[in-house]
């Protein structure tokens, strides 16, 4: 039995003040992905059966490249946040959960960087 008031015990044990940020960024990226995702899904599926030349030249427009990179950033950020929630909900072991979340964030960052550099290489060559 500890002789502490309820207030004393609760102080300093509040939220980490980062939950709102996660919630908000998940929604902001979701809103960005509505137009960007619809466009890019159509764009990439139509190019899927095109020739290499046709696909390559479609990335020669400054606007297409800018929108593609914006899409990639929103996509992998959103994917990373979504997967984090799934690990948090279903993995009870703390160290495993923490490793999976960190692994997911690193993996998504890597895929985003790889995609962006590839798009820039297509654009510049």
């Amino acid at each position: 039995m500890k002789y502490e008031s309820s207030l004393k015990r609760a102080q300093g044990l509040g939220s980490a003040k980062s939950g709102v940020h996660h919630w908000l960024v998940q929604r902001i990226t979701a809103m960005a992905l509505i137009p960007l995702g619809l466009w890019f899904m159509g764009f990439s599926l139509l190019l899927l059966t095109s020739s290499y030349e046709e696909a390559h030249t479609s990335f020669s427009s400054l606007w297409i490249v800018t929108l593609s990179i914006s899409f990639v950033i929103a996509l992998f950020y959103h994917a990373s946040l979504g997967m984090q929630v799934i690990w948090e909900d279903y993995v009870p072991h703390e160290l495993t959960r923490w490793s999976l979340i960190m692994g997911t964030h690193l993996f998504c960052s890597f895929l985003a960087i790889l995609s962006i550099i590839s798009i820039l290489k297509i654009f510049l060559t």
Partner: protein
Amino acid sequence: MLSAPEDIKRPLSPHLQIYKPQITSVLSILHRGTGIVLFGGSILWCFWFVSLAGGRDAYHHYQTLLLNPVGLIILMGWSFSFFYHLCNGIRHLLWDIGIGYEMPTVRKSGWTVVFSSVLLTGITWTIGLMKWKGLL
């Protein structure tokens, strides 16, 4: 005598399989499921950029990998997941600003999501396959 703590069969709270599937719960689970599918699908997009940056041979190799019956079924499932997650995501965003909480509305918006995602997938693949076969 009290038995040891590990011998006590404590009641568990009812889990997912106990409940009758309802449009609300099924769609909620599908939102998560399709989210996981899309996480995998985003890797396909990344590889597509990499193959296009890698030159003609790499691109053709990737194309033949995707443009076969198995690849096309995966792509169709992926695009359905995409349209479902997008439509249901809009439903979630509307809930976030306080719209559509009445039960009849929730059911109606749920079925709207199901029909629009099927429709969008159908339209996309009709156009996509027509273009592939040179009909467009």
